[in-house]
């Protein structure tokens, strides 16, 4: 996929950001470059190489299930633009 294949309006909608016409052009070009780079990587022959989600061969990094204290309500809500009844207020959403 190259720059002209990018549906910048759809991407902007998914990211919940409003873009000006100039920004759309600029970002579509930048994202196009990224895709072109991926396309280039795709050219590499990877026959016989196992796919991986990570570069380093490290697995099973975990912690035991022992609960530790968390934040107080005051701390938890201190960045909330609006709060009521110890909860964060957001525009009404129904799904």
């Amino acid at each position, binding site marked *: 996929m190259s720059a002209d294949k990018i549906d910048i309006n759809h991407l902007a909608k998914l990211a919940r950001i409003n873009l000006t016409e100039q920004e759309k052009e600029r970002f579509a070009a930048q994202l196009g470059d990224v895709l072109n780079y991926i396309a280039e990587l795709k050219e590499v022959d990877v026959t016989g190489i196992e796919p991986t989600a990570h570069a380093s061969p490290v697995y099973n990094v975990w912690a035991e299930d022992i609960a530790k204290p*968390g*934040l107080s309500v005051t701390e938890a809500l201190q960045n909330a633009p609006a709060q009521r009844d110890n*909860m964060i207020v957001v525009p009404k959403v129904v799904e």
Partner: protein
Amino acid sequence: MNDYEVVIGLEVHVQVKANSKMFTRVKTGFGHPENTLTDPVVLALPGVLPVMNHAALDAIIKSGLLLSCDIAPYCKWDRKNYFYPDSPKNYQITQYDKPICLRGNVEIELPGSARNVMGEHKLIPLTRIHLEEDVGKLNHAAFDSLIDYNRAGTPLMEIVTDPAMQSADEAFAFLTALKTVMVYGGISDCDMEKGQMRCDANISIRPKGQEQLGTKVELKNLNSISYVRDGISHEILRQLSLVKSGGKIVQETRDYDGQTGTSQSLRTKEDAHDYRYFPDPDLMPVKVDEAWKARLKAECPEMPFDKQRRFMKEYDIPYTITSVLIPDKSLSDYFEATAKLCGQAHAAGNWIANDLLREIGKSGESIDQCKIKPNHLAALIKLITAGTISTTAAREVFSEMASTGELPEKIVERKGLTASASSDDLETWCKDSIASDPKALAEFKAGKDSAINAFKGPVMKAAKGKANPKLVDETLRRLLAL
């Protein structure tokens, strides 16, 4: 209606019973004051990193082993991206193309022809089970919504079935069976009222004989096992009547309201989400080796239906009793312990299914809290069989045990409940009883053996419950044979 068949697939979310969250160690829980179970990871504050909960991984692998799934030797984590205030990160960590458990099945039992008849058993195939994190809870007010993040990040399994069920009854039986397995395995309590188990159903209909699946409708918010059954029944009827009247089913998500028994469209396929899944770079993949699986396999309990079949075979107790005992693992273990101690499974089953359940129902205690332990009940049953106490006296001892936790022998002694009526008295009472019931006497003489029971009541009454039932029977028979 008969020329269509129904196809149902379920997506069941089950919260793993864990002390801490899926990717951070703050406490999990239900019913805590709002926003008291959060930490920087839950709230997605800048710079935080997720760390897997070992116990949650154990739980899903154990679930997979219990449900005969293939456990993937390798799995990874993905980000499911969407903007919704219940998820402060704007993505949910889940497993997209590499879930831990693949395939597998759940054994279900359909309703029998009567309460005392075992219904048909079926295996419902599973597609997959994966692990993810739960989201926060939104409370809708008149003009805005309020968020409580206590639930956010709780370890959550998503269990997906094949489109393999054909009725609301099957879906109901599936959830009941799944819940029992989860509770047996100590994986989740599956209390739907607490949101520990939640269910979405994909429902479609197709003309009989057609291989291709019909257009599916996803039904959401089925908040209790009964609502699942009602909601699915409602949706099947909606689809059938729509097709019959020449309408077309559209692929959509509908919200079922159990209170009113109605559903309404939430969104259609056109506004389906685009989640842009990609591997989570913050989390390392998981490798499951044979040793890990073997450790969990050793912790797996006997499966509920296997236990039920064994009880019926080994202890020869009726289906009705087993269907009371089996759904509750503690109760079925209690039964087995009692049956082994007294060697009388029938009596043990009856006492537990009737008296013991009534007793704990009354006190609101759990079976583990009940003061009557298997050794108490077994001793009581032995006392009855030996003829030391009458059944009437046994009930009194039972109530006394429930409140004091004393052994039955002690109570019998303390209250003087031994069936101790003298043989002279007994002989007189028996004679009186026979004389006072000529009808039963005639029946007995005519060969109806059970007519003898009619004489026992008055004898017991005269003896104030203290007559030895065995001796009463023997005396009556001797007198009747004269």
